[in-house]
């Protein structure tokens, strides 16, 4: 489809990820104390971005809170104190890898494996879901800038390789050939 402005950017981003999960009947309390710490916990299937964090919810009464990298486990330790008696807070910074796919064809690339309806009407900015892509678990978050993908660390390379190859098969953007398309592939650990 020549003539169509196409771009795709795939970046790995480092962030601290803490999962907090409410004990039975404690979700409302947990939401209150989180709000007290300046974090509004979103409803199921939603994500809320603030200047210093992103909170999302893809499992009932469980939230992922992404913050810029700090000392290992520091964020989890803070949340463990917040959650005491109400739930659990676990550091998943190493367990999940974050990728961000931006550009006009981002969703077109994703539907090569994503079985979720990614139409902007069905999956608008602020939506979040957990699903399976290329046989591995993936959490998708629709951001204004693109789609954030969280995938288990052990399969992150597999997922990344598939994204790259799928984008190429797409015909739009072999990274070395297409002007204006940027693909950073080097930061993957």
């Amino acid at each position, binding site marked *: 489809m020549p003539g169509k402005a196409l771009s795709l950017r795939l970046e790995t981003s480092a962030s601290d990820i803490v999962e907090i999960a409410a004990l039975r009947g404690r979700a409302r309390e947990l939401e209150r104390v989180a709000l007290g710490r300046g974090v509004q916990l979103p409803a*199921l*299937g939603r994500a809320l971005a603030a200047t210093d964090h992103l909170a999302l919810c893809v*499992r*009932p009464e469980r939230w992922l809170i992404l913050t810029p990298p700090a000392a290992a486990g520091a964020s989890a330790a803070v949340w463990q104190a917040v959650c005491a008696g109400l739930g659990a807070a676990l550091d998943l910074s190493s367990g999940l890898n974050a990728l961000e796919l931006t550009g006009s064809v981002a969703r077109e690339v994703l539907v090569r494996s994503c*079985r979720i309806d990614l139409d902007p009407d069905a999956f608008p900015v602020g939506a979040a*879901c*957990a*699903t*399976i892509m290329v046989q591995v678990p993936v959490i998708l978050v629709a951001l204004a800038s693109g789609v954030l993908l969280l995938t288990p660390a052990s399969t992150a390379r597999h997922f990344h390789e598939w994204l790259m190859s799928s984008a190429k098969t797409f015909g739009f953007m072999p990274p070395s050939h297409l002007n204006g398309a940027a693909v950073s592939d080097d930061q993957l650990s």
Partner: protein
Amino acid sequence: MLRIRCPWCGERDETEFRYRGDASQSRPAADAGLAAFSAYVYERKNPRGWHLEWWLHVGGCRRLLKLVRHTLTHEIRVVGTAQDQPSLPQEPGR
């Protein structure tokens, strides 16, 4: 392929779920004896018609769902939580 409307995640492909068997069986009390446990583990009605079954949404919310599914037509009438107690429909499935 089944499409299952997860109460938490919305409608999803069957591939995201793991079938966990007949949900009409409930685990006997600890002292119920060998025969009761044998029935719990091995005896199944295998009906041609409505069937109560467990599906674990491993590819989504990881919640356990209780479905009312028709084994012949694949119609899914109810998708509930593990604690729901849906009754099986009387009418034939579509």
